């Protein structure tokens, strides 16, 4: 039986306090880490196979090892922007176990010798920010943060920085710009943030869930961590945020690589007894998979091989009543709204994709629209500064390539073949 690791304190409100968190074994990882050489910690995290949970799946230990030793100050920026449609797992971690995140951040800071950590949290998450703020205050008062990290003599300050509503600030360099008080427009890379990051200094940027894994790796060891998951490249516990047409949407923790079928069953099966048509395995940026992929293992490499990505592991489930054109049109609207506008292919292309998809949805599409959409995808792909451009074409390409008969049907019948679904009778 798999015992929850990251969510073990969900349902244990005592863990919101420093005392309760410590009672659940909290801050043991930090205590142990402070007895270790920083480089040994980095090696251990590398060895665990922990890959970033924010979307890109990059090795956390490797990222930390890129931080130059001879430049000060250094920063950690925790990415709590969580704005990828379908994703709500980081909110759970912050609202139910804030100290776990603080501990993970503290270990990372010690490992890379960063004296300041900013937790960049999306502006809408006021509840999570309040809970974190309270936990930070307790950690300062309890002698964990501040002038001497848990009595080690290492100075560590940790602050919350609230965003103001912009998806692009989840992109790591957009986030740095925003932290510095600017418009959140991504930077040209290289230089990478590990060398020139926040305020021009070396900076680690990691996702909330990534950092929450760290205390457990230190406490229980890389070998234990690696024993969970599919293989050497896909290790550890993973949060999956499942929503859409399922009976019991929610955040579920599993060993990485559980099949989509199992996940669906544990979420109570399809909403109101519907039939699976399609699902998105990793948030709005991930290409859509057809129902025939139901037995896919939900790990980084298997999902990539199937022509999508695990991304933020936000799983959106769609039943047979769903219009794929309409769904993708909604995502296209999102990307058009969120494009920061710096690169012409992304700014103009996302706009055209939204317009074309709306026109098809409303029965005004033409036979060449599918080809036109693919051609726009081709012009955005690889021609934009940050990954938002590529993200925006993911769902659109998968619509044209995997669900083309539905696009054709809209054009042929000159209307949307899927009647508008009513979810509520008499307002209830």
């Amino acid at each position, binding site marked *: 039986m798999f015992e929850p690791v990251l969510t073990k304190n969900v349902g244990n409100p005592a863990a919101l306090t420093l005392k309760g968190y410590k009672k659940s074994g909290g801050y043991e990882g930090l205590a142990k880490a402070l007895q270790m050489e920083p480089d040994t910690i980095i090696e251990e995290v590398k060895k665990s196979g922990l890959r970033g949970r924010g979307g890109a799946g990059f090795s956390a230990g490797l990222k930390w090892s890129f931080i130059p030793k001879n430049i000060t*100050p250094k920063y950690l920026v925790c990415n709590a922007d*969580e*704005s*990828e*449609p*379908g*994703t*709500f797992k980081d*909110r759970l971690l912050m609202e139910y176990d804030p100290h776990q995140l603080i501990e993970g951040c503290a270990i990372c800071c010690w490992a890379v010798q960063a004296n300041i950590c*900013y937790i960049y949290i*999306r*502006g*809408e*998450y*006021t*509840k999570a920010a309040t809970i974190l703020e309270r936990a930070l205050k307790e950690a300062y008062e309890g002698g964990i943060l501040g002038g001497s990290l848990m009595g080690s003599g290492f100075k560590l*300050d940790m*602050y919350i*920085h*609230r*965003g*103001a*509503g*912009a*998806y692009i600030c989840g992109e790591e360099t957009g986030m740095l710009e925003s932290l*510095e*008080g*600017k*418009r*959140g427009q991504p930077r040209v890379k290289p230089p990478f943030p590990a060398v020139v990051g926040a*305020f021009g200094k070396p900076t680690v940027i990691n996702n909330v869930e990534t950092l929450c894994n760290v205390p457990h790796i230190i406490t229980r060891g890389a070998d234990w961590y690696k024993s969970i998951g599919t293989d050497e490249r896909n290790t550890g516990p993973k949060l999956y*945020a*499942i*929503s*859409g*047409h399922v009976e019991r*949407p*929610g*955040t579920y923790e599993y060993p990485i690589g559980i099949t989509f079928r199992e996940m669906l069953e544990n979420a109570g099966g399809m*909403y109101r007894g519907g039939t699976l048509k399609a699902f*998105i395995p990793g948030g*709005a940026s991930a290409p859509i998979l057809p129902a025939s992929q139901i037995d896919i293992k939900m790990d980084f490499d298997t999902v990539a091989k199937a022509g999508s990505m695990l991304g933020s592991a936000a799983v*959106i489930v*769609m039943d047979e009543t*769903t219009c794929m054109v*309409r*769904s993708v049109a*909604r*995502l296209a609207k*999102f990307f058009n*709204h*969120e494009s*920061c506008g710096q690169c012409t292919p992304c700014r103009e292309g996302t706009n055209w994709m939204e317009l074309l998809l709306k026109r098809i949805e409303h029965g005004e599409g033409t036979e060449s629209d599918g080809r036109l959409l693919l051609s726009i995808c081709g012009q955005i792909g690889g021609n934009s500064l940050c990954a938002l451009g590529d993200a925006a074409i993911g769902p659109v390409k998968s619509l044209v390539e995997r669900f083309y008969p539905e696009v054709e049907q809209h054009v042929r019948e000159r209307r949307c073949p899927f009647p*508008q*679904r*009513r*979810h*509520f009778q008499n*307002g*209830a």
Partner: protein
Amino acid sequence: MSVSEPKVTSTGLPPAAKAELDEIRKRYPTDEAALLPALHIAQRLWGGWLPDEALEAVAAELGLPVSKVYGVVTFYDLYHQKPVGRHRIRVCTNLSCQLRGSEEIMEAVREELRVEEDEVTPDGRCSYVHFECLGSCDTAPMMMVDETYHENLTPRRVRDILRGLK
């Protein structure tokens, strides 16, 4: 003829807000980095939106050009440049909520408030907009009223919630 910067007429932020901001400024190596927090404070003070006067006050406080502050304000969805209702309603209409009936929620809001999106009710009580994913897709459909998430909505619950707003 010379072009000059528009005159800053503002007297800055009131003392309590200034003190709050001064505390926050210490966290960053530059004053500019305190701009987002400063705008959050200003928006709270100015009743949920940022008139030019507020931008000028923030600019003066942080020693930044007003044009720079303006550029930042226009970039972010949570800053408003025109008056909003006393209560601000954001209905999520992104995919997970759309799959669970967010259109019917939008309809219910419109019917109840009898104004269009982004308009303020005649009594100044409410304004509403559709919004991108708010990270609560497991409780779809949902909306945010001021700082509070309202989850697992039905049109009837929407009416009850809206009628309860003072």
